[in-house]
């Protein structure tokens, strides 16, 4: 007699178990696509593009913030927009990188706890990523970082950072396993703790590139380049630091060339 595990799989979901948070990433990429496309178009009189997204503040305005419509001209709103755009960017670029942890968490959880624990992990992961987003949102601090020189410096730091053993160690820390309790309430806290740990380790390994993305007004060359580097590092065959650093350099060159073309 079969133990019946086949019936527990949840066959309705066509992808690997525990992969549903990737939809968040997809949604984030879709929501940012018009803005990124606009960055590739020449500046023209009137609205910058037809995506109904505010480009004037140098941030991506998510539909929720946009729908609120309150105090759009205040500094607080701009900070909120910057923080929101940071979280959307993190969801787009970083949630796929956490997939191995999600997959393992899904397997380790009792079936009745799976959605809850994966949700706790993702929620904590994005919350952890929001903390540097709040810093980015502070007007006059990171908000003032724009233009070629700061972005080029950040990308240079990104490229150099790949060669430090401390970065590889941080990457491993982000994948440390945390034991799960049999009690659901405790297990939720532990899954959230793992999400925070993964977010902080991830943020420290990728922060210069992510700030460069924000400073470049989420230019597709840096966003897609960054996502490629993260994916290559996570799922590739242990790329060498010089390969990842080369990718950072290539992204910078593309950003420079495309920006020059648009101007």
């Amino acid at each position: 007699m079969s133990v019946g595990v086949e019936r527990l799989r949840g066959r309705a979901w066509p992808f690997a178990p525990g992969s549903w948070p990737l939809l968040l990433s997809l949604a984030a990429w879709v929501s940012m696509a018009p803005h990124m496309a606009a960055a590739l178009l020449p500046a023209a009189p009137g609205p910058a593009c037809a995506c109904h997204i505010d480009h004037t503040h140098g941030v991506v305005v998510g539909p929720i913030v946009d729908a609120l419509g309150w105090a759009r001209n205040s500094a607080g709103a701009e900070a909120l927009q910057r923080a929101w755009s940071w979280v959307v960017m993190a969801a787009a670029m970083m949630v796929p990188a956490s997939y191995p942890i999600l997959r393992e968490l899904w397997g380790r959880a009792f079936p009745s706890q799976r959605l809850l624990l994966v949700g706790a992990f993702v929620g904590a992961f994005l919350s952890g990523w929001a903390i540097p987003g709040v810093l980015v949102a502070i007007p006059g601090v990171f908000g003032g970082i724009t233009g070629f020189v700061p972005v080029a410096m950040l990308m240079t730091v990104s490229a150099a950072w790949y060669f430090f053993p401390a970065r590889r160690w941080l990457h491993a820390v982000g994948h440390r396993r945390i034991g799960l309790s049999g009690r659901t309430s405790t297990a939720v806290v532990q899954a959230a703790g793992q999400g925070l740990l993964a977010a902080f380790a991830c943020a420290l390994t990728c922060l210069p590139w992510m700030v460069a993305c924000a400073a470049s007004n989420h230019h597709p060359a840096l966003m897609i380049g960054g996502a490629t580097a993260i994916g290559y590092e996570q799922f590739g065959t242990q790329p060498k630091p010089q390969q990842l650093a080369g990718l950072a350099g290539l992204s910078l060159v593309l950003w420079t060339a495309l920006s020059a073309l648009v101007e």
Partner: protein
Amino acid sequence: MVATRTRMNVWALPPGDQTLHWYAEAIGRMKALPLDDPKGLRWHAAVHGYSGPNRDKFKRPGEKPVNQALVDRYLNKCQHGSAFFLPWHRQYLLLFEETVRFHVRAAGGPADWALPYWDYSERPAPDRYPNDPTDYWRGLPAPFIDPASPLYVSERRPKANKGEPFLSDGDVRLRGAMRAPTRGLFNSFYGPMVKNHFLGFFGALEGSVHNRVHMSFGMAPASFMFLVDGAGMDPIFWLHHANIDRLWEVWKNVDPSHTTPSAERWKKVQFEFRDHSGQNVIMAAPDVEHLASMPYTYQHTAPPSSLAGLSIRQSNPETEVTLGRQRGIKVTELGVVVQVAVVHPIEPERPRTPVPVGQLDKALSLTIEGFKTKDLPYVFEVWLTAVNGETLQPPVEVGALAPFGVLDASAIGASHAGCGVDSVVDLTDAYLNLPATIRSPIVSLTFHFQPVYVPPGAKGTGKIEELRLVVE
């Protein structure tokens, strides 16, 4: 490729055979070479492990450290807790064998010299010592315990160097590994499809026979075989790994479902080596996955009679279910007793009836996750001692936690960030052999982790992050 040489069981070498004589001759020459010479023994040992506090073991007075570029490129590259454990070590062994043959030829030996393997699991056939009352094949062959031979190293536990059979039944038992499925999230023959030096669940063969034989040579720092960074300095290491390489083929011959992985990652991941002439060698798992494509073969690759009646596990990594778990377990030199409650009903139509009576067509496993220690690096035999709180008489030995590399894997500053080691014990047979009256329903299983090979007076502690009962 047609095999040009045969790797023989070291215990079945015919009288007067010179294989070990030439091996000793070559090892003597290799030991004299500097660390950065790919023709030397120390180079080959450092390719396996060269990091952490044991790194200086390789350094000689007045010797310059190895060029860092060489270290980064070639040294400290062994694959453990990874599906690449077997292919990486096959290529590694092949290059070592070619280096030994280079030295054998230089010494006037045969051009077709082949590395023998050490079969410690089965009585040799033909048996050269039929009147020996001991399980002599679980000890070391004579040249390895002769202090005058280059094959001797003092860095072994005394019993090993006395020529006594020092490996236990549990150390060399093949059944658990030989029935492991090709695929599985936790319980599988190969282990996880990740390229790493030490991170992830041990595959079934690696986590059992491989690790236990390594660790049964005695504890660090007194034993080379115990250490990732030094195992290759003991000439028996290479015969042990030849046997592990052979057992890969034996496992394939056990059942048609035992194949090579089909994952894209298996095909794409590449490894870089340096041969004895200094040439670069790039390999991927498909280059070495079939024994028939190798330039050597083995004397015996058929499943031994001890594997008769083996029930084969079919596993699917999409269907694992956690039935129960226990976390934060402190282990001491006396071991630990842990009760794991089965809290998840695995048959939805029979809620709260945890494990059903009858056949189990999946593997039931105990995962041992994140074992970390700084001073308790011992093998722990795992015994099932009670079911539903009732003591089993006698208790059932279900496997072992053999944490080869745990000292490295517990170091916070190392590349694995102190994640510890992960292992799996297959409980399926133990479960099926329980009387039906006990088996239905099972609400708890009690395990005793009992350390073995603990030196007298030793003290220490370790921590298991989590134990889980898993069906997959």
